[in-house]
Structures are given as structure tokens and as C-alpha cells.
């Protein structure tokens, strides 16, 4: 046995996975914290890092400053506390959520190209959003659009499930095909609606579809935070079962996994998470597709490690892309989805060319 002890390089990389995991997670957590702290200081309106942190500490009740003698203006206070901080946090939540969903869907569809927007949910959300933008307007206040988008997402999810389920079995290929088919169909209906509607609304629709974190306000954060937390706990709890799914359908059954039930559970959780994320921030692409691949390079395929790592990397990634989106041609906001797609596509090309 010791004859082939001279292990080759990939073996060494794999050997370290289990042992290095705590260190990797600690590093990522630290990087996330640093990213948040730096990102709140960056944007079109210059506020020094010291002042940004002062504002945070002040509002968090961690620093007792004499309110008359603060080093920043009330305007800066509003920008950092009311706009930028929630926006950075939302970026983190959405980035983590999309990456988590991408990694889980890649497992249940056994397809490395699966992503949160592939399975119809985002198209449904887009349909709902377009209906609001083109026809109804904000009939029930500023939350009309997110609510309609979420409703569209749920409807799409239900259709995909109905189409994909056969004899109470949910097969990976059928799920994928049903998702893609429903996605195209719903998108066609949404585009038709857009075409028939008032053409001036087209630009707001396009802007929404490209994704952005501009809606972020404190009162919008609890729902995605809660959804992310619940989704994270459940998916990581299912991590071992997702691993077993990699063995193939029959073997997974033999390992005691109820494969169809597991697929259904993960699909529903992923859809709910995607629905919420998309409703708030539009369809931000490529995060869910690309981040799991990056995470696999560091921690391997064991989903108990892959999911937390994906979530953290996704959060950090989206926070920084959003910094770029709001700074590059300030005061204009570039849709963050443009940035993620450009970076994501470029990254994949680099990966294929040089790795």
C-alpha cells in the first residue's frame, strides 16, 4: 500500500479539503466582513472610510458621540446608513442566496450548468414584474412589483413541478427540461405582454430584468435574510443526501435517499429563495452558475462544505460587483447583472483557456 505513497498533485489538493475547511471558512468570513466595511465607504458620493464606520458605529449604538459634534453631514449619514449599508447587506444576502441555490440545483439536476434562472422561476417573476410595470402600476404600494414578481415565481414553480412529475417520480432530466421549457414559454408570454403594452415601460422592464440592488432599504431586508437563513439551514442539513445523489439515482435509493422527495424539496426551497431574491433585485445572472464552480475548487464537492463556501463567496462577489456598478460611471447605476455576467463570462473563458 505504501508503494504508491508518492501522491500526485491533485491528491494533495483533495487531502487538504477536510482539514482546511475551517480555515477556508474563517478566511471567507473575515473577507466578507472586510468587504462589507469597505463597501459602505465606496460609492458616487465620497464619504471617508473613517466617517462611514463612524456612522455605522453611531447607529449601531456602539459609539457614544456628541450628536452636535459628528464629523459628517446629515446627508452623508442618510447615504451611508439609509442607502449604502442596507444595499451592501442586500448584495451579500442575494449573492449568497443565488450561489447557494445554484449549487443545490446543480446537485439535484446532476447538471453543472444548472442555475437559479434556468428552471422557470425567474421567468415567472419577470412575467409578474412586467404585468405590474406595463399594466397595473403600483396598485398596492411600493411592494407591488416584488409581490407580483414573487407570485409569478410561485406560479412558474407550480407549473414546472406539474410538468416534471410523472408517476410521483421526479427525474433529473425531466426537471431540467420542464424548467427550461416553462421558462421559455413564460418568457414568450412576458415579452408579448411587453410588446403589446406601453412602449415607454420597456426601459424600466429591461432595467429590472438586468438586476439591481437599488431598492435596498432597511425594511426590505428581513424577508430575504429570513429566507436565506432558513434555506441555508435546510440545504446544509440535506448536504449528505445531496452527496449521495451524486452516486446516481439507483444507488442513491439504495443508500436510503428518497430521491424524488429530495429533488422536490430542494427544488421548492430553491424556487422560493430565487423568487424572493429575484423579486427584490431582478434576475442577477451568473452568480448562481459560476460561484459553485469556484467554491468546488477550494472545498471539493461535499455539499456540507460546498454550500457554506458557495454562499460566502457569492456574498463577497456580489458586494464587490455592486460597488463597481454604482461607482464606475457614477452617478449612474450600471445594472449589477451586467457586471456579474461580464465578469462571470470572462471568468469562465479564462478558466477554460488557462486551467
Amino acid at each position, binding site marked *: 500500500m505504501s508503494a504508491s505513497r508518492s501522491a*500526485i498533485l491533485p491528491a494533495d489538493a483533495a487531502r487538504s479539503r477536510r482539514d482546511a475547511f475551517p480555515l477556508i471558512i474563517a478566511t471567507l468570513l473575515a473577507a466578507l466582513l472586510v468587504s462589507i466595511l469597505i463597501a459602505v465607504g465606496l460609492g458616487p458620493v465620497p464619504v471617508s472610510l473613517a466617517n462611514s464606520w463612524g456612522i455605522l458605529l453611531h447607529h449601531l449604538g456602539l459609539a457614544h458621540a456628541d450628536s452636535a459634534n459628528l464629523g459628517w453631514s446629515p446627508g452623508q449619514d442618510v447615504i451611508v446608513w439609509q442607502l449604502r449599508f442596507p444595499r451592501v447587506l442586500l448584495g451579500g444576502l442575494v449573492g449568497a442566496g443565488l450561489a447557494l441555490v445554484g449549487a443545490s440545483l446543480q*446537485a439535484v439536476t446532476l447538471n453543472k450548468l444548472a442555475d437559479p434562472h434556468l428552471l422557470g422561476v425567474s421567468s415567472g417573476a419577470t412575467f409578474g414584474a412586467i404585468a405590474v410595470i406595463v399594466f397595473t402600476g403600483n396598485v398596492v404600494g411600493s411592494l407591488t412589483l416584488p409581490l407580483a414578481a414573487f407570485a409569478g415565481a410561485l406560479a412558474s414553480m407550480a407549473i414546472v413541478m406539474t410538468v416534471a412529475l410523472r408517476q410521483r417520480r421526479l427525474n433529473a432530466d425531466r426537471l431540467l427540461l420542464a424548467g427550461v421549457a416553462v421558462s421559455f414559454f413564460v418568457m414568450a408570454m412576458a415579452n408579448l405582454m411587453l410588446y403589446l403594452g406601453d412602449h415607454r415601460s420597456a426601459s424600466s422592464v429591461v432595467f429590472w430584468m438586468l438586476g439591481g440592488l437599488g431598492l435596498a432599504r432597511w425594511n426590505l431586508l428581513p424577508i430575504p435574510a429570513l429566507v436565506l437563513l432558513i434555506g441555508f439551514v435546510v440545504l446544509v442539513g440535506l448536504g449528505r443526501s445531496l452527496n449521495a445523489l451524486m452516486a446516481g439515482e439507483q444507488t442513491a435509493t*439504495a443508500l436510503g*435517499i428518497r430521491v424524488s422527495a429530495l429533488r422536490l424539496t430542494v427544488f421548492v426551497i430553491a424556487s422560493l429563495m430565487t423568487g424572493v431574491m429575484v423579486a427584490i433585485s431582478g434576475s442577477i445572472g451568473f452568480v448562481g452558475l459560476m460561484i459553485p464552480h469556484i467554491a468546488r475548487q477550494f472545498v471539493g464537492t461535499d455539499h456540507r462544505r460546498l454550500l457554506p463556501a458557495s454562499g460566502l463567496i457569492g456574498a463577497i462577489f456580489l458586494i464587490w460587483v455592486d460597488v463597481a456598478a454604482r461607482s464606475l460611471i457614477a452617478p449612474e447605476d450600471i445594472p449589477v447583472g451586467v457586471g456579474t455576467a461580464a465578469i462571470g463570462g470572462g471568468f469562465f473563458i479564462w478558466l477554460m483557456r488557462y486551467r
Partner: protein
Amino acid sequence: MSSLSLDRVDWAPHAAPTDLILKQVSLAVHPGEFVGVIGPNGSGKTSSLCCAFRYHRPLAGTVSLAAQDIWQQPGHWHARHAAVVLQEFPEDFGLSVREVVDMGRTPHKSLFQGDSAEDIAIVSQALEQVGLLSRQHHPFETLSGGEKQRALLARALAQQPSLLILDEPTNHLDLRHQLELLRLVRRLGISTVATLHDLNLAAAFCDRLYVLQRGRIVADGSPAEVLTADLLDRVFGVRALVDAHPIAGHPRITLITQEQDHEA
């Protein structure tokens, strides 16, 4: 008490039982036995095995492990008793050999339960038994066919089963690896049911054989009782000489490869 018993099992892929693929299939594996299932392509060998680990639900009849009806037990119960090695390889998501074998611990774990020192030791031991411990951190995809098959066996062993279910375990293996794998399984002494294509291997390694033809068991018994020239002609449609293996004494099958007309 048998390790596995199928009792008059009917099965068809669709609930309409017009064209049954398994018809009244009964078979039993007693503790410590190595039972072979043989039959032509499409005769229902894999389907029978699939009934034993809850992949196929019989339309009629019962399937029991350790004298318990598997369909009366919780969904993962069977996985603590029976482990399988199928013609199914893990998806290429970059799994290491060890990660593949780790899967074998799944049925013994609840949600959120991590790997204990015991789990790690069990997986290491399984890797050791199949001679892959030194390659545990290699990507599964980079293994040779024989090594992959052994890794899948290690996964089954990590399940600590009282029954092994093997579907054509020697497929794609060269002669030496075929023998090594079957010898290893015999040495483990775990009750085993295996489908085998190579009838000489079946004769050499199995305590008892079941013969499937078009979804029915048409013969069963010791290799010497089952493997007759008459049966080979009737079930497999081949002419063969059957004599005793000169060293081991079990039946030896020699196919007659000339076409019939020419011979006369």
C-alpha cells in the same frame, strides 16, 4: 431467517400489470451465502435486484430483509441492511475516491450529523479492504475501470451491510480483476446476491444459482444442479459441453462455437 427473500414478486414499470417484467419471482439468500442470478439479456435480473433495495415497488408479493418487509419499514431502513454495487458510476463533479466511499455512511446518519471518528475509521477500513487506501484522495474519475468498481464495492462495505447486492460486478474488468473482486467478496463472508454473465465464474463462486427467463425463475439450485447442457440450450439458446472443472470440481462449461450444420 434469510438475509433477503423475494416472495412471488410481480413487477412492471407501469402500474398496468398487462406486461409484467417479473412474474412470481421468488428467491432467497441465506446468511453467508453467495447466490448468483443468471439469465439472458433482458430476462429481469437487474429488475429483480432493484426490488431488493426499494427502487422498484412490486405490484404483488413481498420483499424482506432480515425477515422484515422493506415496504413496512421507514424509507432508509433497507439501506442499513443491504448495500449495492450497480452499473452506475458517480457523476463527474470532481468527487475524490474517499468522498465516493463516504456516501456509504449516509443511511446511518441523521440530518446535520457530522462524520464521527468511527465513520472515518469505517471508511478507511473499507478503502483498505479493496486496496485503495493509498489512492483515497485521487479524483474518482482518474481511476481505472477496475479501481472504480472496487471503490464502489468499498462504498457498499462502508455501509456495513448484512447483504451485498451486486449487478454484474465483473463487467468491464479484465480476468485478473474479475477473480480478485469475486474472491474478495467471498472472503468477506457477507451474504451476497450477484447477477453474473460469465457462467463459469457463476459456477466457481456461487453456492446457489437462480435462472431467470422472461421474468420467471425457471431453475434454481447448486451450480451442478442448474448448469446442465439442457438448460443452457433451453434458456440461453447455446449448445455447450458441461463437465467438471479438473481442479475445483465445479461445473465447467465449454461452448460449442461451430455452427450446427457444419458439425454433422
